[in-house]
Structure formats: C-alpha cells, structure tokens
C-alpha cells in the first residue's frame, strides 16, 4: 500500500514542479510581451465586418507574435478619449483606435503620451508616435461595382451606406464608377441608413431600405454599413437577389446570396503595426493600403465560386491591372474638388 502511494505521489510532485517552471516561464514571457490595447468602434468586435477585421488582426498577433491584448467596444463616443488615456496611463505599448471617430481622441492622447505608440484606422493624425492606416476604398469598390454590373439583369443597382460620412461616400463613388464602366446605362440608387453612429447597428432599417430598392427592380446591392449589413443579407435572401459584403470576407454568411465582398484588410494593417513595434521598426506617419499591396481586394472563395463566372473574374482581374498601371483612374471622393 505504502509503495503504491509513493508511486502516485511522485508524478504529483513532478506536476507541481513542471507547473512551477511553467509559471516562471509565463511570467517572464509576459514581461517581454507587447501589450496592445484595441479600441473598437460602435459596431463591436462581432460585427463580422470592419471591427471583426481589426480584432482578427490582434488575434493573429497574439498567436504569431505572442503579444497580449485587451479590447474595448465603444458604447459612447465621448468615452473614447478617457478609455485611451487610461490605457496609456497603464503603459500599454500600442494603442489602436479603430474608425474615423477615434481621430480626435488619438490626437489628444498621443500628444500627451509621446512615448507610447498609437495606430489609427481610417483617419490621419500627424504626430511622430501615430501610425495612420488609410485604405484606398474606392479602388475595391470599383471592382465590386464591375462585378455587380456584370451580374445585374435589370441594369438597376443599389448602394447602401451606413452613416452618411465622406468615408462611405468614397465607397459609393468608386462603386458607381465601376458599375458605369461595365454598363454606362445602368441606374444606381444610393441610400444611407442614418447620420449618427446608430446607423452601423440598425439592421431592421437596412433591411427595409434594401426591400425598398428591390421593389424598384434593383437586383444587386452593395452595402458598406457595418453590423447593419445583415439587414441587406436577409432581404436579399428572402427576395432571391444578390448582395455584396464589405471589409471582412462576408461570403460565408449567406452562400449563394453574397456575390463577393470588398475586402479592406484592417487585420493586416493592425497586425503589421504590432509586428513592426515588436521588431523595433515602428514608425509614425501614414501607411496606405490599396490594390497594390493587397490591403484592398475583392473576396473569392468556395462560397461564391459558383456565382462568379470565369468571364467575370477575367474582366475584374483586367480592371485591377488597369488600375494598378494607371490606365484607369478611379474617382476619389476625397479628391473630388481637385
């Protein structure tokens, strides 16, 4: 009996030793790990679109670079600054603001804490410790516009924007140019859900707007509306029409309904910022993501393979090449007055 007991106890001792070693290891590794704070916009981490992409970026950094992160979801725009300031006071290494509405807060807090690195998605702040991550949304929107025009039978195509702001108008302008490139006679309906941040979280209204467009014979709609995109997907599924997703690859949400998604690789931009900081290469300034560096693209996968024919794909690839070579200049809402 005694013998057996001893035998049982030995591995137990070993376990404790191992776990002790492990504890020491984890403590020491976390001392070296990068601490990243991610401040998400109103759509929240599970909008399966813009914010989800940013979240995927830090998740990847956690797996591949061993960083640790904390995220918060904005409930109230006025709280963003205080949140960032508290992360800075806790000496986080990198604070990432996701969305144009964070610009003001990043501007103030980054000035106050010049030793902490910041990254800002979709807006520019000109401080040496801030990396502004900008995307050429109009280029990707142009490509999915072309896809929409080639898929449309009625020649009527819809655009559904979330909040009516210049950023979303930029999507709309590029999209319309892409549609007109394929079908100059196409009619385009442009709708916006609202003028406040609530617009990113109102799928009921998005659905109603989509149904209204479908009842006017529109048969393809591109939505850039965060978590409200679901409203369009539901409407398109019920009416057997086509939808185009945005930011993340949304093709999987309703295969057969979603033609493609305009990819905005916020995940790559966020991951790169963390990676550069870890490797000591982090610099402030503006980094642009576009077709050239695959920061912007359109999504092709097993969920939309049957919807996108070979001809369509060849044509879109050709357009992509023409944009890259400068043969096609996609109109940019930000530069509309030049």
């Amino acid at each position, binding site marked *: 009996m005694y013998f057996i007991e001893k035998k049982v106890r030995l591995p137990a001792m070993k376990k404790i030793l191992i776990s002790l070693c492990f504890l020491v290891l984890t403590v020491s590794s976390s001392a070296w790990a990068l601490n990243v704070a991610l401040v998400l916009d*109103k*759509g*929240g*981490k*599970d*909008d399966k679109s813009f914010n989800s992409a940013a979240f995927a970026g830090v998740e990847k950094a956690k797996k591949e670079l061993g960083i640790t992160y904390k995220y918060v*979801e904005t*409930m109230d725009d006025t709280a963003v600054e205080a949140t960032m300031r508290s992360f800075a006071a806790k000496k986080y290494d990198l604070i990432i603001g996701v969305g144009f509405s964070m610009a003001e807060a990043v501007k103030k807090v980054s000035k106050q804490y010049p030793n902490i690195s910041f990254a800002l998605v979709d807006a520019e702040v000109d401080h040496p410790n801030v990396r502004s991550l900008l995307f050429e949304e109009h280029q990707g929107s142009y490509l999915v516009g072309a896809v929409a025009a080639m898929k449309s039978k009625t020649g009527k195509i819809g655009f559904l924007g979330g909040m*009516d702001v210049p950023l979303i108008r930029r999507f709309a302008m590029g999209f319309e140019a892409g549609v007109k490139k394929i079908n100059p006679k196409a009619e385009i*309906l*442009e*709708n*916006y859900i*609202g*003028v406040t941040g*609530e617009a990113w*979280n*109102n*799928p*009921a*209204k998005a*659905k*109603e*707007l989509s*149904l*209204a467009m479908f*009842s*006017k014979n529109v048969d393809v709609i591109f939505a850039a509306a965060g*978590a409200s995109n*679901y*409203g369009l*997907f*539901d409407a398109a*599924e*019920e009416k057997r029409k086509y939808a185009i997703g945005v930011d993340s690859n949304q093709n999987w*949400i309703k295969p057969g309904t979603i033609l493609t998604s305009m990819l905005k690789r916020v995940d790559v931009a966020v991951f790169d910022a963390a990676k550069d900081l870890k490797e000591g290469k982090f610099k402030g300034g503006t980094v642009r993501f576009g077709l050239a560096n695959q920061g912007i693209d359109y999504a092709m996968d097993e969920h939309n393979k049957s919807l996108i024919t070979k001809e369509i794909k060849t044509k879109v690839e050709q357009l992509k090449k023409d944009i890259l070579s400068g043969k096609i200049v996609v109109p940019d809402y930000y530069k509309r007055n030049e």
Partner: protein
Amino acid sequence: MIALAFFISIIRMATPLVFASLGGMFSERSGVINIALEGIMLFGAFTAAFVSLSMGKELGFVAGGLGGMSLALIYGLIVIHGRANQIVAGTAINLLAMGLIPLFLKSLYDSTGGTPSLSMDQRFSNLPILFMIIALAGAWFVMKKTSFGLNVSVAGENPEALDAAGISVILVRYQSLAVCGLLAGFGGASLSLFLASGYTRNMVAGRGFMALAALIFGKWKPVPTFLACILFGAFEAVQIRLQGAEGIPPEFLQILPYLATVLVLAGFVGKAVAPKVIGIPWKR
C-alpha cells in the same frame, strides 16, 4: 404593386412601435411613467432571439414577451414597492438592459455583439403583423370593456377611490406593468425575429422612446395611439422611399418623426392630458 409594397412597409415599421406603445399605455394609465420601454424592448429582442435559436420562432416570440415582462416587474419592484423616482429608475432599467445583455451574450456565444443570425425558418415573414392587430384589439377590449381596464384607469386617475372600493392599487399597478412588459417584449421580439434576423447590439435604436412619443400623440388611448404609430411608421417608410430623390435632403426626412413629436408635445395638435397621478407613487 409599388403602392402595396409601400403600405406593407409602413405596417412593418410600425409593428414594434404598436406593441411597445400599447404596453406603455397600460403602465402609464395605471399611473406609472415608463421610460424603460427602450430597455424592456431590448431585453425582449434578446430573449426572443436566444430562445428562437434553440426552440423555434413561436416559443421565441413568447419568450420575448416573458423576458420583457420580467424586466418590467423588476422596474415595478423599484418604483411601486421602493417608491423610487420613476424617471431615474426607468433610465436605470434602460442602462441595466444595455449592460446585462452583452454579459449574457458573452457567456452564451462568446460574443458581445449579438446572437448568431437566424435562418429563414427561425424567423417570421409576416405573422407578427397579425399578432400586432390581435394585441390592438385585445388592448382596446380590455381598456374599454373589462373591469380590469376600469381599475387600471382609476389607479391612474383616482387611486384613493380604488383603494376605498377594496381593490389594491399596488396589485393593479403590478398587473399593468406585467401586461406592459409582455407587450413591449413582443415589440422587441418582432424586431429580432421579424424585422431583422437575430439580436444585434442596441438594435432597438430609439424605438422605445418613439413609442412613448406615439403614446402621448395618441393621448394614452388605444386606437389613437395605434394611429400615431402608423403615422410614425409612415414617416419612416416615406423617408426610406424618398432617399436618393433629388431636392430633399435625407437629413430633413430623418428628423420628421421627431419633429412631429415636438409639435404634439408643444400643443399644436390638440391637448395631451396625462393620467392625473402619473409618476406619483401610491402610499395609503
């Protein structure tokens, strides 16, 4: 064809409003101000989506009502038993709903944003419109033809008389809040199971307050309140149809429902007289 689609769109947009404002009517006619409608709807929307995912849409709809009812009864506990200020307590309930739901979502689905989205057979296509009409007829019948309806309005006009007749004012107010929570919860359920597919963050988006405005617009009476909801639904539907039309800025269209409410409250469209003892806790 387009006219019919437009008409159906009005009814659809009005459905959650009608449920919530009829619910608010029971609460307010019994003397309890209810600005917690927004939170109650939100909670109803969440419970409906949660139950619908595992047990089907019919049970989901019922669960939405029960979820709303439970939150309304918590509100009742605070303002009827605790005799708290009803505006403050109502605001607290709204905040409670906004905080509790992400907590539940996180533990259920490891997501703070919303429930997984519902498939076509887990959500309704048109049935909630019928439920809404039944609720309207029922609310009208109860308020006009039953002794319970009479008790509710006496509790809000002259609670002493009710008490003198040997009927508990407290019980009547609890019952009214239960009915209110049930109906507002159905309103939330019709959002998550009918207008959208599943619960998403703060999806009520001000409809609870709009329902309250409709209730005042409708002078706390069932049929006028219903018509006010239809009018607000029409504003929203018109705004949706007119978007993109040249000449009318969408920002102007989006303020129409609020503009109408302000005009009513300012007394331009008849006088809105609230129940006499609304907001005053009952103390014998």
